[in-house]
């Protein structure tokens, strides 16, 4: 090339200068575990399905959701949403209303008739599931997806277990329950009703089952000895809630006392109110903050006019009245009797003191260990008897629908592995995407005009009353409030803020790559990533 006077070199591009060699730290794209997913007992990928919902693709969102939980319409009503308690957005304004979006997706699925695909291939293995409650249904669904032939044997006349016989209708309408059960049955899961398994060994041998999952609910009410007069009316909570499902509603009278402090006590008190009781009083031996019931349910019950009698135990029940003794908390927080007595008027007393599981079907099973009324299982949910797994209320754990659904999924994965003679090793969990990993500047506040609607959306009970057309707007709005903690949502910030053009945008859905030839390691991409999906790691020589 001819050069002008005094010029000796060709014109070149600065791209010849690989500034990546300056770097002592390199950015890498990572996935961190969103706190909602971390907190979910059913192991849902909440952030994942919200990302579909926020683009308005509700079916994709529902499909992503049901990868882990086949009962979103139920869960969207009865779950105590620990996800929302963990949500990072709470530190900005208020947690994302995950539960209401889940319910919206569940309801959409029922309305649109979205179905689960049957398995592509049959494994030829047969699995017996005992109990058609949340845990059994969840296990059956996941086992069926693995291609196993699944039979559920349910002692009762209808599916749902405690969801039907323990959760009142005002929290879970039965048509929703039936629709979600039917969808699982439609995958080819066989459900036999009024088919109590008396002995698990015999049932497995007779039916030719290769494995079993036991998911019997806690249907037996715990009793406490309370001196009661002959004419006194003392019932238990399981009985009351169960009879709500039958023709003859329980006769509780005008003044109902419920004894206990759990969610079941609240359910009974609210049910009593709905049955027309003038007074429903919960008697509990400790204080409100020590109460095992969820606070929002206590709040809702109070709003409905349920009364609470804290620090009290029932000493005696007569016809038309009860005697309670006042308690005081000692230094350790235990209630101690004070010797002060009081009489309350009561037409009936309902005991809600906890429940036990009927474990008679396990009699004589070698290797199986029962402790404190529940079955001992290993980390793989298998009992001491090979091939017999258990979950839900039967095993030591918190007794909620969500936990039960989680057990069902977990057990199904281990059963599937066990049937193949393998072991299931879950993938290691990502580092938690805690609030300090986020750059929250980039998240907008909710516009004022929308905020009242949003308030309504967060209040579950009123959410039902919002007209149909508004539902989608609310759900979409809520979904878009998700911060996408720890997972790239393709906001282009890294691509935009790099002073060295060292971020390569791969196109929609494909994310980004770093061009380490030019990345100087300044860390701007990591600092300005809203959701904490970039980590700076030291370079090694």
């Amino acid at each position, binding site marked *: 090339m001819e050069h002008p006077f005094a010029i000796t*070199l*060709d*014109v*070149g*591009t*600065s*791209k*010849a*200068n*690989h*500034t990546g060699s*300056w770097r002592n730290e390199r950015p890498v794209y990572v996935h961190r575990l969103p706190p909602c997913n971390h907190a979910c007992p059913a192991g849902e990928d909440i952030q994942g399905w919200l990302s579909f919902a*926020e*683009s*308005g693709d509700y079916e994709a969102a529902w499909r992503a959701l049901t990868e882990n939980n086949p009962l979103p319409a139920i869960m969207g009503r009865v779950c105590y949403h620990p996800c929302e308690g963990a949500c990072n957005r709470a530190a900005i304004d208020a947690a994302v209303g995950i539960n209401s979006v889940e319910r919206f997706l569940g309801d959409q699925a029922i309305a649109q008739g979205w179905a689960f695909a049957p398995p592509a291939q049959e494994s030829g293995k047969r699995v017996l599931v005992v109990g058609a409650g949340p845990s059994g249904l969840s296990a059956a669904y996941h086992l069926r997806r693995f291609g196993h032939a699944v039979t559920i044997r349910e002692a009762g006349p209808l599916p749902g277990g405690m969801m039907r016989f323990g959760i009142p209708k005002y929290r879970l309408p039965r048509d929703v329950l039936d629709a979600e059960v039917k969808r699982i049955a439609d995958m080819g899961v066989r459900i036999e009703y009024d088919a109590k398994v008396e002995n698990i060994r015999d049932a497995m041998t007779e039916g030719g089952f290769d494995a079993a999952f036991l998911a019997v609910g806690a249907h037996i009410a715990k009793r406490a000895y309370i001196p009661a007069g002959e004419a006194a009316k003392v019932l238990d909570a399981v009985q009351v809630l169960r009879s709500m499902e039958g023709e003859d509603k329980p006769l509780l009278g005008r003044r109902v006392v419920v004894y206990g402090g759990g969610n079941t006590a609240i359910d009974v008190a609210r049910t009593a109110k709905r049955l027309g009781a003038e007074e429903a009083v919960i008697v509990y031996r400790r204080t409100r903050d020590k109460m095992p019931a969820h606070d929002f349910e206590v709040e809702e019950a109070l709003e409905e006019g349920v009364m609470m009698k804290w620090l009290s135990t029932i000493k005696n029940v007569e016809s038309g009245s009860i005697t309670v003794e006042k308690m005081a908390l000692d230094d350790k927080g235990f209630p101690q009797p004070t010797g002060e007595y009081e009489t309350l008027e009561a037409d009936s007393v309902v005991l809600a003191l906890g429940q036990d599981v009927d474990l008679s079907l396990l009699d004589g099973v070698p290797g199986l260990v029962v402790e404190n009324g529940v079955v001992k299982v290993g980390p793989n949910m298998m009992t001491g008897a090979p091939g017999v797994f258990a979950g839900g209320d039967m095993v030591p754990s918190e007794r909620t629908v969500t936990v039960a659904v989680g057990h069902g999924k977990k057990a199904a994965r281990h059963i599937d592995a066990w049937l193949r003679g393998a072991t299931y090793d879950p993938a290691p969990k990502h580092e938690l995407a805690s609030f300090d990993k986020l750059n929250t*500047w*980039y*998240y*907008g*506040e*909710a516009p*004022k005009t*929308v905020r009242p609607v949003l308030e309504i959306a967060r209040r579950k009970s009123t959410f039902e009353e919002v007209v149909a057309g508004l539902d*989608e*707007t609310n759900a*979409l*709005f809520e979904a*878009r*409030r*998700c*911060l*996408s903690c720890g997972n790239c*949502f*393709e*906001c*282009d*910030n890294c*691509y*935009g*803020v*790099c*002073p*060295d*053009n*060292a971020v390569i*945008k791969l*196109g*929609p859905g494909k994310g980004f790559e770093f*061009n380490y030839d*030019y990345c*100087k*390691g*300044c*860390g*701007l991409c*990591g*600092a*300005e990533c*809203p959701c904490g999906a970039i980590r*700076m790691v030291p370079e090694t020589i």
Partner: protein
Amino acid sequence: MSPINEAADRNAAPLAPGETQKLKFYQKGTHTVGNRLVDVDDRAVQSSLDRSNALTCGHRACQGCGEALGARYALDAAMRATGGNLIAVNATGCLEVFTTPYPETSWQLPWLHSLFGNAAAVATGVAAAMRVKGRSNVRVIAQGGDGGTTDIGFQCLSGMFERNDDVLYICYDNEGYMNTGVQRSSATPPAARTATTPAVGDEPGNVFGTGKSVPRIAVAHRIPYVATATVADLHDLERKVVKAMSIRGARYIQIDVPCPLGWGSASHDTIRLARLAVETGFYPIFEAEHGKVTAARKIRKRTPVVEYLKPQKRFAHLFKGGVEDPRVARLQAMCDANIEEYGLVDHHDDDV
């Protein structure tokens, strides 16, 4: 409302003045560079796969250089606005040095460099040449640092303004002569330490009551368009460049570009500091047309000035030994005065 309806709404309603993106319910991506939920056409130039990268890789700016970032933001927006018919004239300074060590260049557009002080005059000449050749569709941008603009090139700049030459002058303001070893310029803020205003004596750092505001001086020239911008608000910056390119005559945009080297800040803090400069009122972001201030960018989360000062070593002497120098209060008063003057905070509404 479905997302489809929202898109229709967005298309139906044109952008209001001061608005960059019409966003509805996009809580997650409202302030980000791009947003997968809005139409491609409505996204920032910087989010686009085919942005021109007018200032491309391999340049020798320091890690986390605010000026390299600001220059690409501005020129890519101008390239799109002019359909690529753009010539840039550069004053001497960091931007010129780190992009064009002979024989390499990082510029992907026609680019000229003459002297430290004459960028505005050269740009005037280029614009005149284009006009004479009947190619007035080719637009001209002059650019330089604050030294080449507020000090050395000031006379040429003022001349360009008063003649209303058809040039957009962009000043990348990093508040000092960073290229030559961090000396004070007339854009260096009070109390800042530079090589020529060392942190020694009774009142260490730059002297209060000195310096000048070239944006205000530009407004006083009554030129068609003056704006300040920041690398912390890309949407605002791009909108201002696009607006400037839609106007003929003399235009001036000054962009706050933090300098990790000169300010003594971490390279990953460049955008955070630019953001804090806005949120504290330290660097008012406004625009003016024909001598009148027409709009100001509101503060989103009002922040005390110490938050801005503390991450910068050039202000470290203000907090020496854990004792706050009384002059911090004077800097806060400066911020408060800016907030008052430009109306950066709405008193009746603390919402965004």
